[in-house]
């Protein structure tokens, strides 16, 4: 088992190197650079720029150097935690992201928990009562959630919250707490605002999750070992939890790998509509304005989280499923 984990960690190295090369090529691909789009923007606004200043900035940030040299600088910088400089914010990338990462993780964490708490019981009910009115009704509601555009739901929820609870519109805290150090009042204010994005982002995820829990569990419920458990006199619910439900969890564990990257990049549009202080909107803006180090670092972070996520699900799967752990005649 230990050698398996070690091997998996070693595999991550070439994967990440390849990812960083791809990311760098991608952000270099669009014609021009940040300064060009900056100049265009200023011109569109009717202002003039000194070409000498731009030229100076280009040399300053090393844009005259060959591409591989810039790649190496960026890639080696990341190893020591230096993700480069954001031109737009005129701050190191670390500082731009760092602030918002905290809020992002809070929102996503609660969203995921919300999704699971709602989706699992409903999915299990739907599977065990297949084709009943309950199944159809819950499926219908779930599909409604899936079909409603998130930004629309966000607007409606925001209106309702303001109308009935007096919550300020947008953001994750009341305006008075912005920039303040953390206090009890700020914490309560965060919780007050949190439920809207959690529900909005959660609904579509919940609906999809319900369908998958239902489908996976239904597959397992038809297996003969379920009959075996019943024939042994196992009470229905205990048997359900011990055998088919546990088997159906494999898909879910394999999914954890995909969950991690959504922590920083999920639900951008909702975040913009609700003006949440999360990382999603920054990523979109960075891509639009060709703020290359900011965008590149973001993509790299996503890649890293994906690789870590897959590692975690692989290890968890191996722990939970003896067939994976002991395959190929591995001695134990």
């Amino acid at each position: 088992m230990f050698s398996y984990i070690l091997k998996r960690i070693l595999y991550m190295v070439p994967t990440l190197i390849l990812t960083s090369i791809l990311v760098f090529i991608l952000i270099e691909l669009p014609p021009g650079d940040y300064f060009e789009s900056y100049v265009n923007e200023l011109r569109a606004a009717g202002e003039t720029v000194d070409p000498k200043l731009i030229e100076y900035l280009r040399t300053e940030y090393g844009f005259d150097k060959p591409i591989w040299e810039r790649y190496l600088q960026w890639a080696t910088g990341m190893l020591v935690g230096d993700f480069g400089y954001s031109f737009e914010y005129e701050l190191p990338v670390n500082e731009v992201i760092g602030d918002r990462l905290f809020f992002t993780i809070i929102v996503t964490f609660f969203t995921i928990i919300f999704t699971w708490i709602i989706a699992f019981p409903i999915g299990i009910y739907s599977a065990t009562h297949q084709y009943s009115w309950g199944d159809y009704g819950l499926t219908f509601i779930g599909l409604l959630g899936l079909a409603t555009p998130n930004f629309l739901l966000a607007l409606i929820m925001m209106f309702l919250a303001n109308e009935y609870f007096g919550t300020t519109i947008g953001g994750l805290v009341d305006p008075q707490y912005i920039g303040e150090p953390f206090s009890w009042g700020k914490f309560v204010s965060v919780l007050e605002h949190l439920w809207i994005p959690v529900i909005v982002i959660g609904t579509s995820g919940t609906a999809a999750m319900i369908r998958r829990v239902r489908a996976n569990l239904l597959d397992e419920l038809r297996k003969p070992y379920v009959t075996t458990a019943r024939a042994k006199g196992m009470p229905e619910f205990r048997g359900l939890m011990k055998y088919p439900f546990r088997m159906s969890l494999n898909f879910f564990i394999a999914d954890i790998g995909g969950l991690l990257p959504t922590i920083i990049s999920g639900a951008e549009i909702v975040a913009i509509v609700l003006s949440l202080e999360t990382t999603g909107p920054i990523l979109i803006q960075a891509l639009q304005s060709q703020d290359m180090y900011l965008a590149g670092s973001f993509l790299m972070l996503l890649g890293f989280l994906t690789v870590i996520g897959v590692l975690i699900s692989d290890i968890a799967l191996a722990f939970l499923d003896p067939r994976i752990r002991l395959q190929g005649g591995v001695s134990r």
Partner: protein
Amino acid sequence: MRSGDVNREMSATPLLKIENLEVSFEIQGGHVYAVKGVSFSINPGEVVAVVGESGSGKSVIAQSILRILPRNADITAGSILFNDPNDNNEAIDLVRLNSKDQYLYELRGGRISMVFQEPMTALSPLHTIGNQVQEALVLHREKTDAQARSETEEILRLVGFPNPARGYEMYPFELSGGLRQRAVIAMALICNPAMVIADEPTTALDVTVQAQILGLLKELQKKFNTAILMITHDLGVVANMADKVVVVYHGEVMEAGSVHDIFRRPRHPYLKALIAAIPHFEMEEGERLVSLRSNDADQSNKTIHKLAAKFKAPDESKTKGPHLIVKNLRKEFTSTKGSWFGAGESKKTIAVDNVSFEINQGECLGLVGESGSGKTTVAKLVMRALEATSGSVSLNTSNGMSDILALSGPQLMEFRRRVQMIFQDPFSSLNPRMTIQNILSEPYIIHNVGTAQKRQADILDLLQLVGMEPHCLNRYPHSFSGGQRQRIGIARALALHPELMVCDEPVSALDVSVQAQILNLLNDLRKELGLTSLFISHNLAVVNYVAERIAVMCQGKLVEIASKEQLFANPHHPYTRSLLSAVPYPDLDRLLDFENIKYSSSMEADDWGDVYKSSQDAGLESIKVDEGHFVLANCNCNISELRP
């Protein structure tokens, strides 16, 4: 006198009494009755067999007793009275109980337990054997963990686990099929129930393992005086196990009685037909199986005769001698543990080990062996579906013997026309998205034979040849029964006028009655078309019915080859003998010798006598013991040592 007879006198009230049971299934647009008024009873310690074809409702009866029917099934009438010998209360009608009644949960696994057909899927792959076996004990008898564990290990020892403590910790996928089924039996017996329902307990097992499992069931049944309700389609198993037999057909009891009445004096035409449809070893030369629902066999015979000339392989001036020669064939599979760094360890498995045989022109050679013995690999090597590691396969053609393994390009394509295969599973061997028309024209398209009109005419003749109607051309495989699909598979194989036919377990997925039809069809076709064939099967009776010579394979080696008369009358190799002694005959005068099977099983090469093992200075060699009768033995041995 059988054990059941004693008990019947001792206890007047039966353990379980089923009366007029009716079970209906709700399907789209109505109800279908799977069980229509079935009645029978089981006495304490008695073995009752319920026999029938698939779809006869026998499994539904079993599920009704434990009330574990699928959700769309409903018991609409009748009663199931269970009279627990452990308490003196009145019999309880299981049908009347509410489906959530606590008594039902105590009954299941506690008083009546079940053994399932497929031990791999009946056990959860994620839980250890010990965990699953002791579950009933934990549920029904309040035991501490230590007690439960020691009792579980005790029952595992009893069902024949060589190392119960280790077996307790193992997962089902780490065990062989036989051990898995032993674990399932242990699971059923651990609470010492009054009755065990065994639903096709040995159908998924090899014949020698089957004999052992049957012996084990019988032994434990006597030891604990447990009643067994045995559900099976195999009359051979019935004859060896049952005290009483209930024959069901389409949800109704056709005939019921003691095992003697059923086998010595079958009365109902269905039962008589069922017995006549099974191939057995005493068949006369040329005797035909009587198919259960025979659709005028003579007629189809005439059709085949009429069309035979058309589908015969083109005549060639062949050299004298065998049609196919396989010499020192060897196939190794290497499995490499995947690794990006370094080469990784590779593990070699020898699937086919130095196999040699010949098939004469127009002859049928039967290849017998248990699962994993390498018989299908041999077939694939002969077909050139796999590449051999070493050895040679040569086919008799107009240019003399040509080496099949060296063919390539157009010659290989030409060879493919000569050799065709019939597959085991009629469900997965036909593409579900192609119509029968497409399936049957594909061989012509691939080999670019004939014009569109000519092909169409050929396809229609093909259908007639295998006894199908022309109107099924536009239908898809799913609309046909297993037997019809197998006919389509045969038609596809015959399309290119092959001269060698490789049949890989062509009837093992079919019911007894359909099996008889397909075997008769294959026999007729083979004789009329003059086909040479290699017929692979694990069922010795089937091979005996179709083949002229039989080769026995074990662990990749061909251990014995002889004409079928020689092999059955005078088997030499210990493996062949144990194989023959393990076949359950549907005949009360030739019952299995369970004691003998238990103690002298020769499945493991270690148990064979020294003359059958290779030694340091001498390998194994095929030794001639009689005209056309060869046995694999140590090449230094004396022929007289080989006489059994």
